[in-house]
């Protein structure tokens, strides 16, 4: 089925694009509820204010989080070598992400079950951790990916990671972590400005403007650091068969200080991708000031899409570079699943993703409208 449409090379590129779509979907949807969690103590003081903030995401965060789970499943199915290497390599970091995220479902569900202030404060902390820690660590992971990760394969293709947790926490990676945190917090603020009423929305708008400027500055600064050669860069040398077997031992890769800018040199129009990242964040900053909540949220989402896509476009065709054995770096053309699996999964995606988007939009429409204190405290409330 569909054999005539796409060959193996095209399927690999399509799945590289879909990986980006999933990561952007995750950052744009789950991003705003993680941002709300991270901002909770900064935008809401009293219990009622906190409930306003929490209830803007109460009915939807669970569906949003499936983008993260689906991302894991899709990487497993389409990029098994990446799944095997990254999650075992970033082992303890991944444990921290999971432990933080595990707190969220219970915090949302259990917080309102008891009235005591201490009970609720503890779950508020869980929501802050569950929002901020993953955002930070995902950025750190991207920072390490850009610099290259110490790994190699045995001749059985057993992945072997050579680094440590502390090695992940280098200054450049932490810089990316900070940028990621600012981005997610900006997006959370945009959501709160859109969905909350009263002082929560006020504070979110004020804070959001600053976070959006910080996001734009940190992202542009990151580009500068790449241009200065601090992140290094990797590029495939010679010709790599685009439809060859998924075996990362069969090619040559060179490191060069500014290799991550190579794609922009070859295809200057690609500059629109990072430009979208900066423009989105700057427009969001203006939107926060002008109190144009709908436009702000859209700008913030576009900014996130641009920022996430920039990482992919800069690295293409490399997905995960190896700092210790560059030739064994994972690329789009040697780390994918088999042609048959990519094709089957594409068919499943083409059928089910539109259905998912359709009922998700319907749910958001049903829940349309702002969440205010009246809705929380009123006797007709359905709130957490």
């Amino acid at each position, binding site marked *: 089925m569909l054999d005539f449409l796409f060959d193996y090379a095209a399927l690999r590129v399509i799945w590289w694009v879909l990986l980006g779509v999933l990561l952007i979907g995750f950052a744009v949807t789950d991003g705003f509820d993680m941002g709300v969690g991270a901002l909770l103590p900064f935008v809401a003081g009293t219990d009622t204010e906190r409930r306003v903030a929490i209830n803007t995401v109460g*009915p939807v965060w*669970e569906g949003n989080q499936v983008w993260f789970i689906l991302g894991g*499943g*899709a990487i497993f199915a389409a990029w*098994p070598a990446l799944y095997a290497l990254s999650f075992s390599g970033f082992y303890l970091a991944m444990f921290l992400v999971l432990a933080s995220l595990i707190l969220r479902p219970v915090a949302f569900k259990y917080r309102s079950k008891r009235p005591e202030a201490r009970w609720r404060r503890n779950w508020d902390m869980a929501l802050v951790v569950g929002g901020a820690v993953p955002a930070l660590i995902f950025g750190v992971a991207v920072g390490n990916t850009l610099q290259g990760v110490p790994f190699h394969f045995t001749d059985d293709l057993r992945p072997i990671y050579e680094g440590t947790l502390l090695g992940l926490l280098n200054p450049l990676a932490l810089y990316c972590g900070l940028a990621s945190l600012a981005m997610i917090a900006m997006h959370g603020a945009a959501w709160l400005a859109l969905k909350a009423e009263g002082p929560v929305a006020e504070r979110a708008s004020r804070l959001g403007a600053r976070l959006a400027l910080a996001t734009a500055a940190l992202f542009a600064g990151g580009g500068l650091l790449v241009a200065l050669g601090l992140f290094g860069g990797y590029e495939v040398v010679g010709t790599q068969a685009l439809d060859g077997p998924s*075996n990362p031992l069969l090619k040559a890769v060179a490191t060069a200080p500014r290799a991550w800018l190579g794609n922009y040199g070859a295809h200057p129009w690609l500059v629109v991708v990072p430009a979208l990242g900066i423009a989105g964040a700057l427009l969001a900053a203006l939107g926060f000031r002008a109190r144009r909540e709908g436009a702000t949220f859209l700008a913030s989402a576009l900014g996130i899409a641009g920022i996430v896509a920039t990482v992919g476009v800069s690295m293409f065709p490399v997905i995960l570079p190896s700092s210790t054995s560059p030739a064994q770096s994972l690329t789009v053309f040697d780390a994918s699943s088999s042609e*048959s699996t990519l094709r*089957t999964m594409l068919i499943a995606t083409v059928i089910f993703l539109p259905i998912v988007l359709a009922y998700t939009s319907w*749910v958001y429409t049903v*829940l349309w409208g702002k969440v205010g204190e009246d809705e929380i405290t009123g006797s007709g409330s359905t709130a957490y």
Partner: protein
Amino acid sequence: MVDPLLVELSRLQFALTAMYHFLFVPLTLGLSILVAMMETVYVMTRRKIWRDMTKFWGLLFGINFALGVATGLTMEFQFGMNWAFYSHYVGDIFGAPLAIEGLMAFFLEATLVGLFFFGWTKLTPLAHMTVTWFMALGTNLSALWILIANGWMQNPVGAAFNPDTMRMEVTDFYAVLFNPVAQAKFVHTVAAGYTMGAVFVLAISAWYILKNRHVALAKRSFAIASAFGLAASLSVVVLGDESGYALTEHQKMKLAAIEAMWESEDAPASFTLFGVPNAEAGRTDYAVRIPWVMGLIGTRSLDTKMPGIAELVDRAGTRIRNGLTAYAALEAIKKDRGDQAARATFDRTRGDLGYALLLKQFVDDPTKATDAEIDQAARSTVPAVLPLFSSFRIMALLGFALIALFGTALFYTMREAHAPRWLFRLAFLALPAPWIAVELGWFVAEFGRQPWIIEGVLPTFLATSELGVPDLLVTIAGFTALYGALAVIEVMLMVRAVKKGPDQVVGDPSMLLPGTGTSIEGYRPFATPAE
């Protein structure tokens, strides 16, 4: 060679997190359907009490659901974290059902669960009921896809090893999808979940009846749970996944171990009701046997012979020797990718490659294995008999006991007679039974698969990540502390919610009447128990 301690710790961590996750999942499966059924009765009859039942059991469903979601996160990523070689080796096949599970099932249940709790005032009763059913469909579809993945670990059909990519790759996706082991597992597991949901509702309703609280609601819940539970528990046994055990070599070994069938018996084999398996002597002491029954269960026939452990070990020895040919050919291909003779040999023998890998726990280079080491590897295909033999029997006993309980409960419900108090006491005491049964069932299926992680393809000891023992100790301690604390909180909230009873649907604003935006202050549907 991977550190054996690392392998043991990786297995321990997977067992802990999977079995903990599995405390919540079957209850979600069962309660989602029960709640949808109650809401349907409400929508059809518009009788308030059914709406209150929907909300009350929905409240308990929500407390349980949160932990199912939380602990499920770990499962999705744990293969990559702790089982990196496995993930690379079989990701081409195993990853697909996991991804489709997310796309088809998780999105459905997680997106709609928000509307289930928050949509009461925003949707018409019919629309809300539809949401509830689709949410239940989502949870059930997720069971289907994860069991297709798990079924493939037990019976790896539709795939072959590709020497160019050094991993298993799909050859026939439909075979993976319609794997008979997966189908049997799905029906068995889902029916077990329904049984658990029914016991949960039955036990808590019985407690209310004994305490003379919320009797009208409790009696209706008791009735619906007993009917649903009887159908579900009968399905668990009749559609038990033993039917899948006759299919493959190691499933046969698992079955022989469960039955402590040391030697092959003439058809139809007898069933050992009770006994003490003695692995050293290769016999079962104090055995009480029922003739014919095992042959009937295991082969659905009177004349198909079932192999015993000794015979299966012999067969494993043969396959190891065949596998060594494949292993040697693969080594030749690795040295010279253009070696066509080696490729031809490999294609002929690659089905047994996994058996040669079993030797790696005894010798670094399997091609240099001695006859003694091959015998040792063949014997390593026998899982530990005693735990499988006893776990299976306790599980089955609990299953039959629950059928009797549901049957009795339904008998009194149908006759509209006053059921005796001992029945309610018994129903309450039965609360832990389904949890014990499903955990033992999971244990039998997965521990019985050892020494394989993918039957006949990849031994467990080769499948882990190259991590340090301290890494594993940190995460095991972390998960244990986190999960332990959450378990305490969950049980506390559950007990509190049950003690507060259905009246909290009046007090709790998140449990508002559907289709109205008004307060329900002062509404006490259960003030007069004799409705």
